[in-house]
C-alpha cells in the first residue's frame, strides 16, 4: 500500500505530554470528577459544616453528647426506612406507602401490647411478619400485576392509614408496657459499646486487607498502601469517636444499635449476595437481567418484603419512643426516607446507591431537624429549608456527574 501521508503515528512520549498538558489546563473538570468520585466524602463534609454552624449558633449546646445522642435516636427511625427504601429505589421503583405502613404496624404493635398483653418477642415477631406480608402484597402488585409502584404504594399510603384509623378508632393507644418502651429508651452498656466498636473496626480492617490481597491476585488496580491505611485511620477515628460520644452520655441507644447492625448486614447483602447484585442489575436494565435467566419478579417482590420489614422495625421503634400507638404516627415519613436516599446519592433512575449513603442522607435530615428545633426555628421554615436542601443536593449531583 502506498500511504498518503507519512505514517505519522505520534510517539507515545508526545501523546503522554499532550495529555499531561491538558490535565494542567483543565482544572474545573478535574474538581468535578473528584467531587463525583468522593461524593460520600462531600456529604460528610456537609455534615461537619452543618454541625459547626449549629454549634456556633447554639453556643455549643448542639454539640453536647446528650444532644448528639438524641439526634441519632431521632435519626434512627428515618434511617430504618431509608435502609429499605434505598433498595426499592435501586431496583427502579418507589414506595410511598411506608409512612402509613409504619403507622399501621406501630399501631398494631401498640394494640397487641395494650389490649392483648402479648410478650414483647411475640409482639415483634408478629409485627415484622405483618410488615413482610404487606411488603409482599405491594411487591406482588408491582411485579406480577404490573401496576406501577408509584400507584400501588400511593394506594397503600391512603389505605394503610385508613386501616390504622379504623382499628384505633382514631384515638391514641396508651399506655404501652415497660418492655416495649425499653426498646426505644434503653442503652447498650459502655463496655459492650467499646467491644462493639473494636469488633466493627477489626472487621473493616480485615476485609480491607483481604480485598487488597484479592485485587492483587486478580490483577486489579490495588490502591497504594498508604491510601488504605489512611482510610483505616479515618474509619478508626470515626468509629471510636462515634462510640466515645455516645458513651459520654448513657451509651449506644438501642434503635441506633439496630441501625448500625442494619448498615452492616445490608451492605454485605448489597455487595456480596446474589440477591443484592440482582437488585442493582434489575435497576440498571430489567430486560437484560430477565433475559439472563433471572427471576426478576421474585427479586422485586423480595425488595418490597425487605421494605415492609424495615417499616415494621420503624413502627415498633416509633410506638416505643412515643410510649403509645398514635393514629398519625409516620405521616410524611416516606418523604424523609426518600429524601435521605436521594441526598445520599441514590440514583432515581435505579441501578446505583448505597446503604451508607442513604444513612448519611438520613443523618443530614436529622441534623437539620434537630438543629433548627434547638434554634427555635418555626416549623414552616424547617420544611422550607429541608425542601431547599433536597433540591440543592440533587442539583449538585446532576451538575457534577458528566453529561453522558
Amino acid at each position, binding site marked *: 500500500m502506498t500511504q498518503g*501521508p507519512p505514517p*505519522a503515528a505520534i510517539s507515545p512520549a508526545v*501523546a503522554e505530554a499532550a*495529555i499531561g498538558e491538558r490535565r494542567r489546563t483543565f482544572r474545573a*473538570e478535574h474538581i468535578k470528577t473528584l467531587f463525583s468520585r468522593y461524593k460520600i466524602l462531600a456529604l460528610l463534609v456537609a455534615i461537619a459544616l452543618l454541625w459547626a454552624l449549629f454549634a456556633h449558633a447554639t453556643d455549643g449546646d448542639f454539640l453536647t453528647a446528650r444532644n448528639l445522642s438524641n439526634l441519632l435516636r431521632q435519626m434512627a427511625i428515618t434511617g430504618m426506612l431509608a435502609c429499605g427504601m434505598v433498595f426499592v429505589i435501586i431496583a427502579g421503583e418507589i414506595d410511598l406507602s411506608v409512612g402509613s405502613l409504619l403507622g399501621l404496624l406501630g399501631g398494631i404493635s401498640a394494640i397487641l401490647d395494650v389490649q392483648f398483653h402479648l410478650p414483647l418477642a411475640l409482639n415483634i415477631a408478629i409485627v415484622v411478619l405483618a410488615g413482610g406480608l404487606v411488603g409482599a402484597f405491594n411487591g406482588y402488585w408491582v411485579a406480577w400485576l404490573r401496576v406501577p409502584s408509584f400507584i400501588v404504594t400511593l394506594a397503600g399510603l391512603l389505605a394503610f392509614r385508613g386501616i390504622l384509623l379504623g382499628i384505633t378508632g382514631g384515638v391514641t393507644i396508651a399506655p404501652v408496657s415497660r418492655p416495649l418502651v425499653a426498646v426505644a429508651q434503653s442503652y447498650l452498656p459502655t463496655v459492650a459499646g467499646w467491644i462493639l466498636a473494636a469488633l466493627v473496626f477489626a472487621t473493616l480492617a480485615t476485609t480491607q486487607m483481604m480485598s487488597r490481597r484479592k485485587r492483587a491476585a486478580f490483577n486489579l488496580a490495588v490502591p497504594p498502601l498508604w491510601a488504605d491505611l489512611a482510610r483505616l485511620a479515618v474509619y478508626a477515628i470515626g468509629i471510636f469517636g462515634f462510640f466515645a460520644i455516645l458513651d459520654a452520655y448513657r451509651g449506644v441507644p438501642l434503635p441506633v444499635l439496630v441501625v448500625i447492625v442494619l448498615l452492616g448486614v445490608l451492605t454485605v447483602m448489597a455487595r456480596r449476595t446474589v440477591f443484592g447484585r*440482582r437488585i442493582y442489575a434489575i435497576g440498571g436494565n430489567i430486560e*437484560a437481567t430477565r433475559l439472563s435467566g433471572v427471576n426478576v419478579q421474585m427479586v422485586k417482590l423480595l425488595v418490597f418484603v425487605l421494605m415492609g420489614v424495615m417499616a415494621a422495625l420503624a413502627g415498633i421503634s416509633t410506638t416505643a419512643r412515643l410510649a403509645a400507638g398514635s393514629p398519625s404516627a409516620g405521616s410524611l415519613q416516606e418523604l424523609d426516607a426518600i429524601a435521605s436516599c436521594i441526598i445520599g446519592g441514590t440514583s432515581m433512575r435505579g*441501578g446505583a446507591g448505597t446503604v451508607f449513603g442513604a444513612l448519611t442522607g438520613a443523618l443530614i435530615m436529622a441534623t437539620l431537624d434537630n438543629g433548627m428545633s434547638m434554634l427555635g426555628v418555626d416549623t414552616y421554615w424547617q420544611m422550607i429549608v429541608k425542601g431547599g436542601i433536597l433540591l440543592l443536593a440533587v442539583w449538585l449531583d446532576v451538575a457534577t456527574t458528566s453529561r453522558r
Partner: protein
Amino acid sequence: MTSPYLLEMRGITKDFAGVVALGGIDLRVREGECVGLCGENGAGKSTMMKVLSGVHPYGSWGGEILWRGEPLRAASVRDTEAVGIVIIHQELMLVPQLSVAENIFLGREPHNAAGLIDFDRMYIESARLLAELRMGHIDPTQPVSRYGGGQQQLIEIARALSKDAKLLILDEPTSSLTSTETATLLRLVHDLKARGTACVYISHKLEEIEEIADTVTVIRDGRFVGEAPMGELTRADIIRLMVGRDMSNLFPREAHEIGDTILQAVGITCLDPDNPARRRVDDVSFSVRRGEILGIAGLVGSGRTELVSAIFGAWPGSHSGEILLDGRPVRIRTPRDAVRLGICMVPEDRKHHGIVPGLAVGYNISLSVLGDLTRGGLIDEARELSDIDAAISRLRIKTASPLLPIANLSGGNQQKAVISKMLGPNPRILILDEPTRGVDVGAKYEIYKLIFALVREGLSIIMVSSELPEVLGISDRVLVIGEGRLRGDFVNDETLTQERIMAAAINAQPISELSAVSHS
C-alpha cells in the same frame, strides 16, 4: 490560510481515567469526499468521532482539529453542528413516541408568531426532505416507533440533513439494516457526495467501505496505521492493516459430528402483542440436532427474532406450539425456564436486552451464573473473579479492567461480553441472534471459531443472521423464514447459494417444491 482539506485532525489523543483510548491519530477529509474509517473493535473509531463532534469537549483531549484551516475548539455538540458537522451515533437517538417530523426538527421546531409550534410547516418541510431523500413512503405525522430500525436510521439521516450538514459522520449506520435498506442508505450517501457533502463512514462491513469510500484511514489500538485512496486497496489489504496479519479464510469451517435430534419445535405461532390479529410467526416447525449449527435466514422483520424469542420464553405476546427436548415436551414460559433446561440466547438488541450498562463488565458476565457462585450464602468473590478472568481471556474481550462499567466498552466488546454471559450456564443449545452485529473481522473470526469449538463439545447452535455469507459460511443447515412462515429448510451443501436463499425468502414458492431439495 487555505487548506486543501475540509477537516484535519492531527495527533488526537484521548484517555479515560488514565487508560489511553487514542494515542495520536490523524484523520483528514477533503471537500465532498467520503472517508472510510476502519479498525477493530475498541480501536477508537467511535471515540475519535466523539472528539470530532464535540461530545468530548475541547480540553478533554489532546491534539488539534482544523476545520477549513481554522482551529476548531468545540465545547459541545452545538458548536460543531453550528459549523456543519453532524454525527449519527452507533446507537439510535430518536424519541420513539414523537412523530417523524417532530424528531427531525427536535430542538429547532419552527414556530409561529404566538410561539406555538407550526406543525403545518414542520410536516411540509419534513415531507419535502424525505421525498428528496427518496423516502417518500415515510409519513412525517406518524410516531417514529411505527417504523423499524432500518427506517429509523434513514430518519436520523433526514434529521442530519435538515441541519445542513457539511460533514456527515456515520458510525456503523447499517448494523441493523436489511440489505435493501443498506442499498438505499448507500445510494443516499452517494447523492449527498454528489451535492458536495463530505462524510466519514465507519463500518465493519468492508463491502460498504469499498463501495462508498474515496479514501480509507485505518487505525489499530488507538494508533494511526495508514491512509490511502480506496482505488489502491483491496479488501484483503484493509483487513491486514486492521488486524495486523493476513486473514485469507474468513470462515474457519471445522468438521464436527452431528448427533441425534435434541430440540424439536412444532407449530410455533407468535401473535403481535399490540395487534393479536397479526401473526408474526405462523406455524413454524423445525428441529435441531446435537452438534448442529442451524442458520436461520430471512429478511429483517420476517419473524426470525420472534421465533427464537418464543423458544427462549421471551416473546412478550402470546404464542402457541410445542417444544420437545430430547423427545419430551417441555414448558418454557420465561427465559429462566429456558436457561434451566439448557437453552440460552444472545439477543439481537444489545443495548436494550443484552447489557446492564452501569454494571461492571465482569458482573454482566457473571449475572447468568451468580446463583452457582455462592459459598455460605455469599458470592465467592475469588471464584467469581477467576471465572470472569477466564471468560474475558477466552473471548479476548478488550477492557481496561473487569470492573469497568460495560457501557464504556466498544460495541463489539460488549457483544463478546454478552456471549460470555450466556455461555456461563453451560447450555446445550445456544441461540445467537445476529451474533456478529457490529463485530470486527478479527473478532467475527474468533466468534466463528468459538461456535465450532462449542459444537465439537456437543452443543447445538441456532444462529439467526442477516448476513448471507455468514449463514452459508458456517451453518450445517439453513432455515429460511419469510413473512412469518417457514419458506425452506436446506442442507448447506455446494448447491445452496445466496440466490436460492433470497428466492426462498422473498417469493412464495410452495414449500412442497422446496422440500424436494431439502433435507428431511
